[in-house]
């Protein structure tokens, strides 16, 4: 009985064939039975991890070419990864180096096959902003806020509050703006707590504070999100006064709104995404 020298793992849109040791004739037979017994394998890309392999026995070559022939009409590819120089020499010697796609590693294969998952806008994306807003206001202004139920609105409705800090963000899979929007009275109370004194009226110098609050919230959230692979880049914050919002030209997608309540009044975090990613 031959020792099994491969593992087959079904992933989203592809199969990983992971070789775990040198290949022999009998293991090829077992492998062929595995393939023939599962029609799913005919409809997925195949990524073959070849690091422990220094040569393909003749029977394995036949089976791999057969598999490639089965998936090709379905628009799928077989990609060899982690190919050692020794294996490459052997493939060339057999005239097979052009018969398979070759990638440096599994990640490169996933990217080349267009299988890298695009990060979506969901609670995993929104929660870091929510938590950062609570943290920033608690630490910098000693304000205890709480988040309400998330909802969406049309972009034509404009900002929720009169003073808004806006930061444009781009990532691998989306671009848009993060907005922290306050009623004037709430904003002035937050500012008074942050820098001392009592602010009773909005003016050009004090409304800049909305940008700084936004900067802190986005900065904190960005670190968390980038650790999760969002690859976000943020621009310098700007401040908008009034509810007319022109943050993401061409935006047709709903705006995601997180409402907050606090002892100094309500405020909102809004995620404005562009429809063009």
């Amino acid at each position: 009985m031959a020792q099994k020298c491969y593992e087959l793992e079904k992933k989203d849109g592809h199969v990983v064939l992971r070789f775990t040791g040198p290949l022999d004739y009998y293991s090829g037979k077992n492998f062929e039975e595995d393939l023939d017994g599962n029609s799913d394998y005919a409809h997925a890309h195949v990524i073959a991890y070849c690091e422990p392999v220094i040569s393909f026995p003749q029977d394995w070559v036949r089976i791999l070419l057969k598999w490639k022939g089965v998936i090709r009409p379905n628009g799928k590819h077989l990609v060899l990864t982690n190919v050692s120089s020794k294996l490459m020499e052997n493939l060339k010697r057999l005239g097979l180096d052009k018969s398979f796609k070759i990638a440096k590693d599994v990640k490169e294969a996933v990217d080349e096959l267009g299988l890298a998952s695009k990060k979506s806008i969901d609670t995993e994306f929104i929660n870091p902003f929510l938590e950062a807003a609570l943290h920033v206001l608690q630490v910098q202004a000693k304000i205890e806020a709480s988040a309400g139920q998330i909802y969406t609105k049309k972009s034509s409705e404009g900002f929720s509050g009169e003073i808004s800090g806006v930061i444009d963000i781009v990532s691998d899979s989306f671009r848009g703006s993060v907005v922290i929007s306050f009623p004037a009275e709430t904003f002035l109370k937050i500012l008074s707590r942050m820098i001392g004194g009592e602010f009773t009226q909005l003016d050009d110098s004090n409304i800049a504070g909305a940008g700084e609050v936004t900067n802190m919230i986005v900065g904190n959230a960005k670190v968390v999100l980038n650790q999760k692979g969002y690859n976000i880049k943020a621009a310098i914050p700007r401040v908008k006064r009034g509810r007319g919002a022109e943050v993401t030209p061409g935006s047709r997608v709903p705006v995601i709104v997180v409402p907050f309540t606090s002892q100094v009044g309500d405020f909102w975090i809004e995620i404005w995404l562009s429809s063009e990613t």
Partner: protein
Amino acid sequence: MFDPKTKVLVVDDMLTMRKIVTKILRELGFSEISEAVDGIDAWEKTKSGEFGLIISDWNMPNCTGLEFLKRVRADQRLSKTPFLLVTAEAEQSQVAEAIKSGVDQYVVKPFSKESLKAKLEAVYKKCSVRASA
């Protein structure tokens, strides 16, 4: 801890943040506090050699806090000035670059009076060790 008579330069392009830092410094007993709006303004003010502590934002237009830090460290007369960087986003690669450039400590926004005090104590300790070496 720093002598409260130490002259402090607070550098930030955002007025609000300068006011926040100044407010906390006053609560910690500092009274001689000057402000600069970016790295270029800060460099002009620093050249006098009067400041015993610099607290600078990282992300600023014209000249960033990191560029300003490098200028300070490259100047023989100013190179030992205690320097604290303030940032809204401390990613590991950034922190590594700041340490390599000679920053004494960094603090992530937002920060409380207690956390700024702890950072200043750490800066003071590091600079004291450096001075006695």
